[in-house]
């Protein structure tokens, strides 16, 4: 496959994974937890590197998932002992992220792991970072990771769709009928952590939040069905990746930056023009009510 094709495919895979997991974060009002996890996975990656002494993506995936789950766990712990949720998030993630930054500057100065890269990501170089797996042809590492994470995400959502849905809508009722609400919460947090770290190389820790939240937020304004919201959100993720890439190559600017910006633009357009929940249609119907 050509260089361009790889970037489009990798960006789209990240867009789909982020898009579908992001929907559940939005419905559970946990968008800020995504921000937190996207930072603390840095600590997981650094620790995985220090322990395994390699840049192997799978160790990093595991390390990051554990770090993400720990973040969710500590936030839950502080919150349930009476600290406000946003304050808990703020304290936990800045602390874990800071530890990650210190560890990088102490032990990992000379390797590929630098703070800039972790924060901003660079999809530009991703297609050249190849891996050979069995009899399959050489392929970019990022492609392998993102495909794997997408499959895992789809399996989890497929198996636990109704549990994810009811715990998002009405956790009390879910608990009353014996659904393990906390377990499902951590399952979702695990998905978010994996998705974040797999998208990390391509778009970086900060922009991944845009990919997690913006497509779902836009889809939320367009549909009244959860399944449609998931599909739309995945679609917006792909659209942003593709359009973002061409915008970036046209203006010769950062590809990941463009992908994330296009996500913002899509959201803004939907926010304005959604036929039912858009700003314009809302204003219009308010005027209509006034006239009547």
């Amino acid at each position, binding site marked *: 496959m050509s260089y361009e094709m790889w970037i489009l495919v990798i960006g789209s895979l990240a867009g789909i994974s982020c898009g579908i997991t992001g929907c559940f974060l939005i419905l559970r009002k946990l968008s800020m937890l995504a921000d937190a996890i996207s930072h603390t996975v840095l600590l997981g990656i650094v620790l995985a590197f220090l322990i395994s002494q390699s840049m192997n993506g799978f160790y990093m995936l595991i390390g990051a998932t554990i770090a993400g789950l720990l973040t969710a766990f500590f936030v839950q712990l502080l919150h349930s002992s009476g600290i406000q949720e946003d304050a808990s998030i703020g304290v936990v993630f800045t602390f874990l992220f800071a530890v990650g930054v210190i560890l990088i500057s102490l032990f990992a100065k000379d390797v590929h792991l630098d703070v800039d890269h972790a924060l901003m990501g660079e999809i530009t170089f991703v297609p050249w970072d190849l891996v050979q797996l069995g009899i399959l042809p050489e392929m970019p590492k990022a492609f392998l990771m993102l495909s794997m994470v997408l499959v895992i995400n789809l399996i989890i959502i497929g198996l636990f769709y109704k549990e994810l849905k009811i715990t998002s*809508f009405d956790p009390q009722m879910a608990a*009353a009928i*014996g659904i393990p609400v906390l377990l499902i919460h951590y399952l979702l947090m695990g998905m978010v952590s994996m998705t974040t770290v797999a998208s990390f190389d391509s778009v970086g820790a900060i922009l991944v939040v845009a990919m997690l939240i913006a497509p779902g937020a836009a889809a939320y304004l367009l549909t*009244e069905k959860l399944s449609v919201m998931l599909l739309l959100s995945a679609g917006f993720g792909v659209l942003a990746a593709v359009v973002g890439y061409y915008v970036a190559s046209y203006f010769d600017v950062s590809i990941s930056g463009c992908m994330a910006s296009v996500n913002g633009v899509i959201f803004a357009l939907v926010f304005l023009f959604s036929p039912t929940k858009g700003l314009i249609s809302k204003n219009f119907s308010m005027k209509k009510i006034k006239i009547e």
Partner: protein
Amino acid sequence: MHTVEVENLTVAYQKKPVLTNVNFTVPEGKLIGIIGPNGAGKSTLIKAILGLIPKACGEIKIYGKTYRAKDKIVGYVPQRGSVDWDFPTNALDVVLMGRYGHVGWFKRPGKRDTEIALESLRKVGMEEYANRQISQLSGGQQQRVFLARALAQDALVYFMDEPFVGVDAATERAIIVLLNELKEQGKTVLVVHHDLQTVREYFDHVILLNVNMIAAGPTEEAFTMENLHHTYGGKLAFLNKSQVMVEQK
């Protein structure tokens, strides 16, 4: 046979007791009102019985056994305000959630579940709204959807948290008719209730709460002026109005 037995129940939030030493038993096939001022621990009582919040001490039994969700004998109607009605789903889908406990892991609700859900919607007079997005329903309609969801659970004991709050008179009547139907089928319904004026009309038994349990028993015996004074303390001006109601009956 007692459907619900609560013995020495105490619940605390961070060392502050919100329910202390609650003792009562509930007979089968009755409507029970849980009455008390704001902050009396009425919702807490229901949540503690359902195991949604931990209890500091005490014993809770439903049909003689410690309650386990998997027994599927309990239906629950949370406060309407406890969920986000902008959630992307429709009325039928919400009612179907009442079947999730019966469906089991890794499976989706089937045709039979959909039939039960539609039947439940019909019982609350909402079948025309099955495909309506839940945010487009009125408060009373949303409450009916919640009730239908509880019906779909096909339980023996129902716990309802303030089902009459913010609903129109027609819905209130419809809910009462439904509760009486459940009662006739031998089901037990516990309802957190605010309006003192309708207590005698609606409920066979009452539980009067204000952190401590003030009284519990058949309405004629327990719903007395004296007990109300104990329950509501110094809020006399408010009580005088309901005093009239109590003494008229």
